[in-house]
């Protein structure tokens, strides 16, 4: 007969010297782990609770301006800096890490309405309601101290009407301003190289496409969104909605999609090739959405609204993933997502810029590989059980300021009442006489070539 019995030698399972690593043997057999689903559920619950315990998104405020912040710009070649401009003409460059002003650019006489940085990260373009477009030199990041004595202003171009927004091409040396019409400028010319016009209303925001450097989208006060192509020097398409769009942002990872921040508290995501129907309607704000910016990952975007909150949405989701608010933060006029997708900067009415974390419970700083694995595991186990009621309740819970909570409830009752009336009208009229329109199409009045 042949007999074999389990025999283990202690040498194989214990370490030889005290500075060796401990030996670990693994057996992934599910039989050795009874009730693994219950254990996972308990871990998901604990992970959700810890998420809330560590959720401290506000990092700090950047104090310095003496009037409301009207616009911000980020420098694509320098991660740590952000430009901001206020309603009294004060433009500053901030160092995000120390939350201090690096240098100021005085010069504008009135409100500065738009700020943008050129492709190579060396020139700052600003435009304002004093009918001027000014170009400034950006100091190098390598530590050349900004001295006030040297003249940082590169050029000042005066034109006929007040400007509302400015944006620079992602690759190229043209920038576009929005005012009575859309003007295309070159750095060295004191007059616009080209201009576009469609209709008689002011254009209030302009954005260049990250993928196609010659395509830009504008929004006008006639409730329209127009897409222009520089090469054909004619407008391509126009979309008229029911309410005005305050700001547009293109998705940097999917450059054919853009999201429009609208006056009726929603954001509409469109595919630029197919403007007749919105891809997604993002509903959560209770007052007009003032500004929108995409994360460099293209997976989420941040919006700032007149209702004093900043919300972060998923690019394809209907409701916000996160909401940030503070008692001291008043109407938010501009928001920016930092270029490393970890921070959100909001500029508001109370003259402060605020720095927030993009993920509220993220641990900042250097993370050990073991910590990182643990964080990833907690994320994964939370996502697996996030539809179960206990976990969902914890993950979804956010404290809202009372006016916003009440306003949200009010909007909901109003929307429900409208829907009920619509359903009754449909039920009491001949079938087919009142067509049901999807929300994505509902807000669009017409599309014009």
């Amino acid at each position, binding site marked *: *007969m*042949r*007999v*074999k*019995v*389990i*025999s*283990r*030698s*202690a040498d*194989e*399972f*214990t370490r030889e010297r005290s500075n060796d690593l*401990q*030996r*670990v*043997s*693994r*057996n*992934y*057999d*599910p*039989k*050795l*782990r*009874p*009730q693994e*689903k*219950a*254990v*996972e*559920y*308990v*871990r998901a619950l*604990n992970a959700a609770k810890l998420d809330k315990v560590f959720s401290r998104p506000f990092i700090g405020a950047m104090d310095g301006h003496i009037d409301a912040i009207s616009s911000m710009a980020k420098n694509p070649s320098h991660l740590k800096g952000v430009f901001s401009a206020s309603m009294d003409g004060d433009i500053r460059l901030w160092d995000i890490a120390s939350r201090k002003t690096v240098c100021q650019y005085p010069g504008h006489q009135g409100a500065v309405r738009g700020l943008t940085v050129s492709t190579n990260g060396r020139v700052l373009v600003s435009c304002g309601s004093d009918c001027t477009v000014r170009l400034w030199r950006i100091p190098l990041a390598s530590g050349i101290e900004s001295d006030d004595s040297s003249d940082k202003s590169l050029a000042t171009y005066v034109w006929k009407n007040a400007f509302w927004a400015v944006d620079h091409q992602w690759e190229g040396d043209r920038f576009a301003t929005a005012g009575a019409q859309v003007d295309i400028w070159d750095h060295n010319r004191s007059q616009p190289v080209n201009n576009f016009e469609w209709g008689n209303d002011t254009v209030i925001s302009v954005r260049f496409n990250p993928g196609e450097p010659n395509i830009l989208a504008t929004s006008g006060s006639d409730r329209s969104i127009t897409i222009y192509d520089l090469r054909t020097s004619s407008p391509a398409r126009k979309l008229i909605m029911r309410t005005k769009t305050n700001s547009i942002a293109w998705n940097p990872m999917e450059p054919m999609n853009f999201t429009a921040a609208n006056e009726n508290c929603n954001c509409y995501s469109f595919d630029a090739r197919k403007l007749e129907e919105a891809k997604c309607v993002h509903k959560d704000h209770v007052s007009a959405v003032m500004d929108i910016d995409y994360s460099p990952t293209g997976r989420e975007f941040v919006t700032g609204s007149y209702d004093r909150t900043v919300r972060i949405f998923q690019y394809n989701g209907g409701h916000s993933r996160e909401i940030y608010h503070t008692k001291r933060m008043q109407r938010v006029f501009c928001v920016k997502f930092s270029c490393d997708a970890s921070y959100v900067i909001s500029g508001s009415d109370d003259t402060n810029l605020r720095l927030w974390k993009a993920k509220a419970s993220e641990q900042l700083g250097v993370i050990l590989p073991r910590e990182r694995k643990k964080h990833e595991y907690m994320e994964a186990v939370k996502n*697996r*059980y996030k*539809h*179960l009621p206990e976990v969902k309740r914890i993950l979804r819970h956010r404290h809202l300021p009372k006016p916003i909570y009440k306003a949200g409830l009010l909007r909901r009752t109003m929307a429900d009442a409208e829907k009920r009336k619509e359903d009754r009208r449909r039920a009491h009229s001949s079938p087919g006489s009142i067509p049901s329109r999807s929300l994505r199409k509902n807000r669009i009045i017409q599309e014009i070539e």
Partner: protein
Amino acid sequence: MEIHDVSDELEIKVKKYQRGEGADLESLKDKKLKGQLANKEDLFKKSANAAAKAEKWLMQTEEGRLEPDGLEKTWRFSQQSIANEVDVASRKNQFDLVLPDLGPYTLDYTSSGRYMVSAGRKGHLTIIDLHTLKPIKDMQVRETVRDVVFLHNEFFFAAAQKKYTYIYNRAGTELHCLKEHGAVLKLQFLKNHFLLSSINKFGHLHYQDITTGQMIGNYRSGLGRSDVLQLNPYNSVLTSGHSGGTVSMWKPTTPAPLVKMLCHRGPVTAIAFHPNGHLMATAGMDKKLKIWDLRKYEAIQTLPGLAKSLDFSQKGMLATSTGSFVQVLAASDSQEYSRYMIHTMAKGYQVNKVLFRPYEDVLGIGHSNGLSSILIPGSGEPNFDSWVANPYETSKQRREKEVRVLLDKLPPESIMLDPTQIGNLRNTKKKEKPKQHEIEAEKAAAIVAAKNVPLKKKTKGRSKPSKVTRKKQEGIELAKRSFVEQNKEDGVMKKKQKRTTDASELPVALQPFVSRKTT
């Protein structure tokens, strides 16, 4: 052919790691959800494949086996002959501790199989480290000890003594005296939930959370004294066997048992559970040993014989003991249990308890004259996982493990017969239309309620008898109205349908002559 076998083996392994069937994606209409789930299923498949392939490298230790040559039967081999064929280190695992005075012994192992606690009926408690075979603590409590069980560590054990249950430290210090349990006959410890459960002389079941000290459940079984209590490791359900032949299954949050099975024609003497959760072995005084399938609750095999104690090993072998005779049954490929090995002890020895040692091919026997340990090749799981149970644990690892296990402590509500149900959504039942007689019963009840409403007596001539009766009638009419409306709706619908069918049944030529009068 070899390639076939290898791929079949791999498939079996992959199936083991996949943990059941994937979700049914065909019936989904939501495209986004379908895409997400398809992605997840893909990932699961990949990880199952990776785990199956990694098995070759991770499983260092080989499992034991006993192969007879030719016509020999495996149960002919005695422990002596096995000892001759096996190496010195394994021979150490075969021993006999003769302790004749202190009563029949019962024993328990920690989940890693390294430490053993044993209790003699007359009050002798010992903890032995089985790697060095040295007793860590040896003490005499001078009271009857009926059962002993390790808690989550080798540092704590609970002993069911004459009047109360006591929890002791590894050093022998008495930490707690649990008076609520009463005179306990059998103890069980639910590892994942940190619940110490017991059944006492009166047949009362107790569940106590040993981390907070709170008594979670305290239930009367209603079936009298019972000294058979066993834990199902798959779903942490306790089962008790009673003198009527019934086996009841309990969970800490309900006073009534989950399942009551009539297993034997006489009292149940022993119960044991297979680690896969489907098989249960029960033995009764009717000299039968039955193997039950818990999914269908029917006996798949009946073997003759008495058994005072039963235990399943990690690999599915069943050890039974009666008197001084111990036998081990193994399931061959046909899933039928047949005799694998036997061990007869000296005549005067009465075996009290048999227990397989985890992660070793060893069976521990507690009997009236002490403790023995015999080798059963092929009964233990050869490869342990350091993060589940580690026989070579250092003190630092033990402390870390304690914290981790406490963080993952399951709430007592999570105990259920099918542990895979956690995380599943409940099926929403569709509301059925109530039947005619149900509607009528409701109507009658509503009318009676309306009739019995007490009307307030008003003063100044406002409560004249005529007014009172009129008000009462109004109440009854109101109660009837809602039912009339319901009825009317249905009636109208029915009539409409009837009319249309009538017209369409006739041939075309006759259709103008169909009477439009409502029948």
